[in-house]
């Protein structure tokens, strides 16, 4: 499943022959990206510089070779900082509030504004919420279906902290790794998914 630019171009919807060399175009595109963005608010131009994960996923169109993937996933896993006191579940109500908020880190947000979890943008969580995205899998009844063992808590905490440790080119951001969410906030989100009292684990979906 090694997809590269070359194969993408072959699949290209406009599929005509290459006008210039492959590396030439890559270099040009990168130069354009580095040149044509301007700092605005908290969004500095440095944000367009890629780290190794981003560069790898871009290069392989999110399907890197297994060896590369494994190596980088291990690297990412090593970045996960679990709470020192070992407490992984917080307040699911605070988590739900956080999950509803799509704010944070855009140039129209202020540095001091609270960052949201953005969860509903991509996932179904509470079966009662109509406005949820489908970029990520449904997480409704997540804890009800899986329990909330210490292992499960650790998995969920780690996954929110740095999803790239589990699936290198996942769409999901690395909320803890990049400092978007704090330890307390991630705990609250773990509770949202795993606490039996959480809205995620209550309520049947609405009947048609």
């Amino acid at each position: 499943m090694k997809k590269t630019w070359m194969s993408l171009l072959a699949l290209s919807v406009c599929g005509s022959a290459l006008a210039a060399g492959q590396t030439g175009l890559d270099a040009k595109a990168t130069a354009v990206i580095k040149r044509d963005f301007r700092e605005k608010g908290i969004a500095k131009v440095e944000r367009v510089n890629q780290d190794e994960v981003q560069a790898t996923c871009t290069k392989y169109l999110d399907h890197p070779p297994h060896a590369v993937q494994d190596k980088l996933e291990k690297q990412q896993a090593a970045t996960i900082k679990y709470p020192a006191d070992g407490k992984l579940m917080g307040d699911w109500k605070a988590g739900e509030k956080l999950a509803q908020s799509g704010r944070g880190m855009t140039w129209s947000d202020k540095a001091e504004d609270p960052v949201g979890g953005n969860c509903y943008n991509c996932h179904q969580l509470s079966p009662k919420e109509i406005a949820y995205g489908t970029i990520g899998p449904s997480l409704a009844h997540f804890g009800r279906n899986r329990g909330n063992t210490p292992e499960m808590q650790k998995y969920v905490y780690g996954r929110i902290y740095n999803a790239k440790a589990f699936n290198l080119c996942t769409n999901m951001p690395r909320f803890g790794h990049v400092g978007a969410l704090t330890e307390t906030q991630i705990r609250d989100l773990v509770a949202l998914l795993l606490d039996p009292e959480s809205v995620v684990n209550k309520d049947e979906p609405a009947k048609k």
Partner: protein
Amino acid sequence: MKTSRMLLALTLAAPLSVFAADEDRSAEEIAKYREMISDGNPAELDEMRGEEVWKTPAGSNKATLEKCDLGKGPGVVKGAYAELPRYFPDTKRVQDLESRLLTCMTTLQGIPEADIVKAPFSTEKKKSDIEAVVAYVAGQSRGMKMAVSLKHPKAKEAYEIGKRIFYYRAGPYDFACATCHSENGRRIRLQDLPNLTTNIGAQRTYTVWPAYRVSQGLFRSFQWRLNDCFRQQRFPEPVYGSELTVALTMFLAANANDAKYDGPGLKR
């Protein structure tokens, strides 16, 4: 690591079907809502205003835009939008509608480019003239077939660069345009996300932009659309009319070829 992979598999195998009916129902109702508001698009008011701006002398040259060449000859507005972006020999650049309007406003009217670029988009307080002209020009291609040419090597190059920009992952959330727009049937909250890597996805989307945005009560140009996507990607701001924005527009516009242009549209 093994355990996590297994858990991941479990996560993905969650009982989606239980909720599917609910999701369909909401989608159906939202579709009905959109249908109900599709008549009476306030973008028509911006088209009217844009025509006035087009015909009103401005800048140090006290000239109108009526001699502006959008690719089909000076002053020809009809059908121009359906063929943009395109390569322009006079500027030796590929230009979309907005970067081309910048050229016309600076050369014909003598308006300094910096004056336009610093506030190209409408705000609640002040409506943008260039966005109104966009509404007018785009409206003059309504019903026409999208026919963006990639024959010129520079046009083809712009397309290829645009494609690379589309897949470029960066920023604090590791997003690319492709994160949201390269799979079928996805939504962000309740908003459908078109798959812009397919002809049908690009066609459905590109042909209804520029558009009146209901949530903002303002008409929005395609450059604005890209600008706001980058904002939500947590990127810095793309320069108005830059090669970056034109290349990305070229990628999307050419992917929309052969579809009937149906804008300006009405969006959430």
